[in-house]
C-alpha cells in the first residue's frame, strides 16, 4: 500500500487546494461510509482530507432566508437543534433515523448525500424541502439543486477538486410542513427498503397549494414524483387525493429485486409511505400555524 496521507485543512480554500492537487484524495467527514469502504478495500484513497476542522462545514445557521447546514455537521448535533426540528420536522426525522447513537455522533448529511446511496434517508427529505448544495471548487463556488446532485448509485455531480460545503434549505412558507418515512425490517440500524418524503403547503382553508414528493431506494437515485405532487395540489389532502398520490409514487418507482425486498413489494411500499408521509406532513402543516 502506498503511503496514505491525512490532511486536516482549516479552510474551504485549503481543502479545495488539497482535493485539486490529488485526484485520489477523499473527503473525510464522519467516516461512517468512507472508512468502512476503505477497510473493505472498496476505496483506496491516496489521502483522507478531514474537513471537520473547517468552521463552515461544522456549523448550523438559521435566519430569515432559511437553513445553512454545514456538510460535515454530525447527525447528533442536528438532532439536538430545536429550531431546526421545529421548522423541518421531516428533515430532522430523516437524519435521526440513520444508524445508532454512535453512528449519529459521526455521520453527516453531507456525507450521506456524497456517498450517493439511492437509499440515503436524508436525500428525499432534502429534495422535498428544495435544498441546494453549495459546492466549492478550484473555480469558486456553485450551487446545485439537491435533486440533481446524485446521478447514479455512488456517483454525484462533484468534479475533481470540488467538495460539498453546505446545504441550504429555504425557510418554509406559512402552513408548510414535511415528513419522511421509511420501511426497514426492524426498528433500528438498517437500510431503507423504501422511503418517502413529502412537503405540503396549505392555504387558510386547508387546501394544498404546493407539494413536493420524493421516493428513495426504489430507483438508481432518489426520485421526485411530479405526478404525486399534482395529485396533492388543489386538494384538501383528503383520502382520495392521498390515494392518487400513492398510486403515482408506485407508478414512478423503478425498483430492483435484492435481498432487502422484491421490486413489486418496494413499488407497493413506496406508495404506502407516500400516502402516510403526505398525511403526516398535512397534519403538521395544519397544527403549525406560525412556522414561518
Amino acid at each position, binding site marked *: 500500500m502506498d503511503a496514505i496521507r*491525512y490532511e*486536516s485543512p482549516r479552510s474551504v480554500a485549503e481543502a479545495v487546494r488539497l482535493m485539486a492537487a490529488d485526484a485520489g484524495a477523499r473527503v473525510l467527514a464522519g467516516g461512517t461510509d468512507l472508512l468502512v469502504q476503505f*477497510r473493505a478495500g472498496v476505496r483506496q484513497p491516496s489521502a483522507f482530507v478531514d474537513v471537520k476542522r473547517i468552521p463552515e462545514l461544522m456549523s448550523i445557521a438559521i435566519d430569515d432566508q432559511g437553513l445553512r447546514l454545514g456538510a460535515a455537521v454530525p447527525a*447528533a448535533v442536528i438532532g439536538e437543534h430545536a429550531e431546526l426540528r421545529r421548522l423541518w420536522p421531516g428533515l430532522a426525522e430523516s437524519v435521526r433515523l440513520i444508524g445508532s*447513537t*454512535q453512528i449519529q*455522533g*459521526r455521520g453527516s448529511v453531507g456525507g450521506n448525500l456524497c456517498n450517493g446511496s439511492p437509499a440515503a434517508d436524508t436525500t428525499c427529505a432534502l429534495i422535498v424541502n428544495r435544498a441546494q448544495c453549495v459546492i466549492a471548487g478550484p473555480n469558486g463556488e456553485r450551487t446545485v439543486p439537491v435533486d440533481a446532485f446524485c446521478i447514479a448509485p455512488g456517483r454525484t455531480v462533484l468534479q475533481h477538486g470540488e467538495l460539498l460545503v453546505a446545504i441550504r434549505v429555504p425557510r418554509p412558507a406559512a402552513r408548510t410542513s414535511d415528513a419522511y418515512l421509511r420501511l426497514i425490517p426492524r*426498528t433500528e440500524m438498517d437500510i431503507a427498503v423504501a422511503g418517502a418524503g413529502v412537503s405540503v403547503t396549505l392555504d387558510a382553508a386547508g387546501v394544498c397549494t404546493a407539494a413536493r414528493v420524493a421516493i428513495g431506494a426504489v430507483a438508481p437515485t432518489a426520485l421526485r414524483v411530479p405526478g404525486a405532487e399534482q395529485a396533492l395540489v388543489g386538494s384538501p389532502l383528503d383520502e382520495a387525493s392521498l390515494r392518487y398520490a400513492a398510486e403515482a409514487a408506485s407508478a414512478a418507482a423503478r425498483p430492483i429485486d435484492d435481498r432487502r425486498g422484491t421490486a413489486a413489494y418496494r413499488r407497493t411500499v413506496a406508495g404506502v409511505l407516500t400516502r402516510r408521509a403526505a398525511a403526516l406532513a398535512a397534519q403538521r402543516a395544519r397544527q403549525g400555524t406560525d412556522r414561518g
Partner: protein
Amino acid sequence: MAKLHIETTINGEPAEFLCDPHETLLSALRTGLGLTGTKEGCATGDCGACSILLEGRLVPACLVLAAEAQGRAMTTIEGLSRGDTLHPLQQKFLEHAALQCGICTPGFIVAAKALLDAKPNPTEEEVRYGLAGNLCRCTGYDKIIRAVLDAASEMKGTTA
C-alpha cells in the same frame, strides 16, 4: 511510512502517541497506548464494542482516524472508575450479572454513560433505543437494561 505524532487528552490526562495516517483511533488506543478496554467487534460501526466519548460525544472508535484525536479529549472505559471505586454502571453490571463473555461490556457501559449524561432518568424504552447500537450475543439484553435502569436510579441524576 511516516508516522504522525498526536497529542491528545485521554480520561483527563494528556497523552501522546504515534500512528499511521490511516490508522483508526481504536487501533491506536489498543496497540499504541495499551488501553485494551475498548474492544474491536465488527470494525464497521455496527456493534458498538469500541464505543468511546470523543469531545463528550458517543462515537465508534473504529470509524475515527487516530489522527483526528489531535488536540481533542476523549473518555474510554478506563476513565470511568475512580481508583478502585467502580462507576455505578460498572457496579450494577456486576450486581445484575449483565455480562457473560464480556466483549461487549465496555462499549455498553460507555454508551450507557453517554445516555445517562444526556438523560439521567430514562424509561426502559429510552434505554433500549439508546443502546440499540450495541450488540450482545450472550445475555439477551434484559439484564443489561435492568443494570442501566438501576444505575440511573442510584445515581439519581448526579453526574459521575
